């Protein structure tokens, strides 16, 4: 895993976007407490899946942990808006890959990579990024779809796909943990790319397990994860009888389970590659339970990947300082309109 090549194109892209910062450009840094970009999951997950005519069914699958030193690899990517310039936004992206082998956790952190996205370069950046990531031309007209607001999330999602592909290629007989679902057909998760990712993993005897931290899906009026409430862990609840195609474009490439893998109050939506036989999917989950630490049903490897990729407030300040130092930006503080208008009642983020 350490041999994973650094995405040169990604670095070049980062530098290329930073080049359009002019000396003396105004820079309004965001505070670390300002709201983060929406996550890719938020953008991807359908709100209505289990509709009335489909009548889904549930099946409890108890799990027996298998301890066999199966390699477990997790990847997570964080994106963060760092501030605004007079012509665009500054954001940073960082990825973390964590793996456990022979009872040892190890990690590789990539980044942070700062980007300067403007109205002028946003489509070019996105276009190039997709090209570098998936070696294909974009099929949609992104001029009308990519907004600066979502740009960090989109770039982060693309970077994540790139890393997922790298891991799938380099790993054999492992469990690959993703943060999110196996829903395909969105702008950043095209069906072809996602299918290719899963196929590559399958061909190398890997199993992709995608964990959704908070699902908005509801079944019989209840939140999906509530359906496992009283079951004894470790166990899965298999959900059957829902459509694979959500729309003309969107597809579910995984079987949806609710996973309660250890004691505690939490359970998660777990998507496992649909093209794997069910026994293999269950066995993979049993291997995860047997070989990884589970805290509140969440695998430690994925938890660490999240922790290592997340930006702290201090890091945000550090990146801001880096940009100011390297590009001679002039810091300005825009007045907080809410504060100006409403005084102490002007709460919430600065618009």
């Amino acid at each position, binding site marked *: 895993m350490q041999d994973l090549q650094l995405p040169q194109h990604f670095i070049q892209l980062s530098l290329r976007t930073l080049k359009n910062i002019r000396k003396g450009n105004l820079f309004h840094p965001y505070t670390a407490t300002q709201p983060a970009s929406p996550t890719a999951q938020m953008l991807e997950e359908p709100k209505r899946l289990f509709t009335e005519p489909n009548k889904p069914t549930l099946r409890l699958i108890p799990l027996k942990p298998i301890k066999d030193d199966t390699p477990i690899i997790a990847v997570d990517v964080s994106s963060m808006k760092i501030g605004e310039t007079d012509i665009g936004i500054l954001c940073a992206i960082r990825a973390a890959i964590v793996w456990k082998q022979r009872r040892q956790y190890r990690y590789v952190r990539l980044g942070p990579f700062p980007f300067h996205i403007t109205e002028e370069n946003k489509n070019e950046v996105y276009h190039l990024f997709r090209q570098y990531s998936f070696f294909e031309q974009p099929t949609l007209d992104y001029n009308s779809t990519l907004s600066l607001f979502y740009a960090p999330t989109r770039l982060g999602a693309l970077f994540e796909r790139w890393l997922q592909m790298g891991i799938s290629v380099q790993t054999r007989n492992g469990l690959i943990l993703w943060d999110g679902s196996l829903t395909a057909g969105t702008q950043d998760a095209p069906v072809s790319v996602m299918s290719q990712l899963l196929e590559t993993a399958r061909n190398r005897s890997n199993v992709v397990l995608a964990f959704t931290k908070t699902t908005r899906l509801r079944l019989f009026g209840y939140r999906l994860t509530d359906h496992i409430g009283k079951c004894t862990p470790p166990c899965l609840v298999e959900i059957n009888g829902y459509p694979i195609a959500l729309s003309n474009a969107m597809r579910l490439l995984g079987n949806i389970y609710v996973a309660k893998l250890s004691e505690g109050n939490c359970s998660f939506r777990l998507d496992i590659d649909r093209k794997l036989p069910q026994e293999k999917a269950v066995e993979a989950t049993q291997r995860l339970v047997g070989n990884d*630490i589970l805290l509140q049903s969440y695998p430690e490897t994925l938890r*660490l990947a999240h922790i290592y990729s997340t930006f702290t*407030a201090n890091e945000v300040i550090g990146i801001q300082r880096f940009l100011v130092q390297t590009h001679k930006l002039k810091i300005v503080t825009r007045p907080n309109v809410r504060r100006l208008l409403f005084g102490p009642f002007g709460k919430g983020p600065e618009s």
Partner: protein
Amino acid sequence: MRLYRKEGNTVQVLCFPNESVEKGDYLQVEDPKQNKALLIQVINVQFANVPGILEELLRDSTNNGDVINGENLDPLDVASQITLIQDARLLICKIRGTIQNGKLSVNSAWLPSRSQSNIKRLSTTTLAKMLKINDKLPIYIGDTKEFSPFKVDAKALDGSLNIVTGKKETGKSHFSKLLVLSLIEHGAPVVVLDLNGEYVHLGYASNGNKNQHYSKIHVLTPASNFKVTLPQIGLRVMLNILVHALNLPGTSAREFRRTWRLLKKQGKLNLHELGEAIRNLQCNHHVKDALFSRYYALVNSGFFTDNPSEAMTLEDCFRKIQTGGVLAVNLRDTSFVDRQIVVEYLLGKLVEMLTGWKLKAVFLFAEEAHLYLRETYWNDIVTRMRHFGVFTTFVTNQPDTIRENIYRQVDNIFLFNFTSEHDLETVSRAAKVDSETVKSLARDLPPQYCLLLGRVVKDFPIVVKVRALDVQTMGQTRLFFN
């Protein structure tokens, strides 16, 4: 460095790790628009309260007892800036004055600009030049943090009450010896009440050879080369010894006075005749017993003699050191009572000579004075005797043995490391700077580093590494496992 906050006379300065600043350093906050600079001193260095630092430390720490090994691929080296912020420091500083047109004043009634000010270090040497603290009679105390020699003016010790204090083995005695030798180099007479016999070899270099001070060091050892006859001592001093050192009650003291005067009148004032006179006294037997017990205490001290050739004339000794020299009274093998007797005699004689202008002034160094100085003498030394020309330096590792009313009159404090809150509290009350400065700086002083406070540094606290001396200091503790 950036000016961050000011509250009262405390200023907070943000400082990055590549800017090397330590406790005790002086900084000048230059405001180019106002064309002046605020002089501040760093009294504490803290980590800046950076948001998210806890998360970072937790992230980089161990996982279930195992260290997580990893690699960071950061081609743009953004992490260097993040590390810089993680290690950012907050300097807690005290305002000391204002520099305008190269001149230093104690004015601190203005505030420099937070956004426009430049902050830079001011070397101790530059500060010393501004303060003109080593102008006339320099005493080379030691070296500054910039490794340049630091000198104070001996005149700042003239007429002053000084305290050298710090915990054990931090260099107090060494420093007081340095002061003693420096003073005699400038021609000052010095008397040392040497509790542990540490000063007796000041005339020898560390290799055992005589040094340049040899002829100026005079050691007086009570009951050996320091003995006196009764006529030398005089009634007043003797009564002081009896009443204060030997606790003779008032009635008995009256009887003693009468006996003394009678013997003097008969020309029989000596130890033998005094004993006989007490034996033949026709008085209350309690009084007689009291006088006898004190008499034997005087005899057993060995300090008194009836043989004039054995007796030493203190006037002659003082004459030897009048143009620079040390009279070291070795109290090492002297009992508590005998020490008090010797000191009573010495101080009484000293005052007598000073009042009679037989001596101009004398610098008195008293090590652990609470072990031989009676209560009433404390005030006497720092008030009355000071006016006669006894300029005392107390050397102690127990600052609470010196009374607060004495501290109030202190001109200079030479402070070494203290860790005890109680001791720091005691000293900080006496210093002419705020207690926060004293406590914070003294707590972290390494051995041999001294915080100078008071007249010698014109009330600008300065930390100095005390220089070495090539003398046999004899201040080291005897060890068993050696």
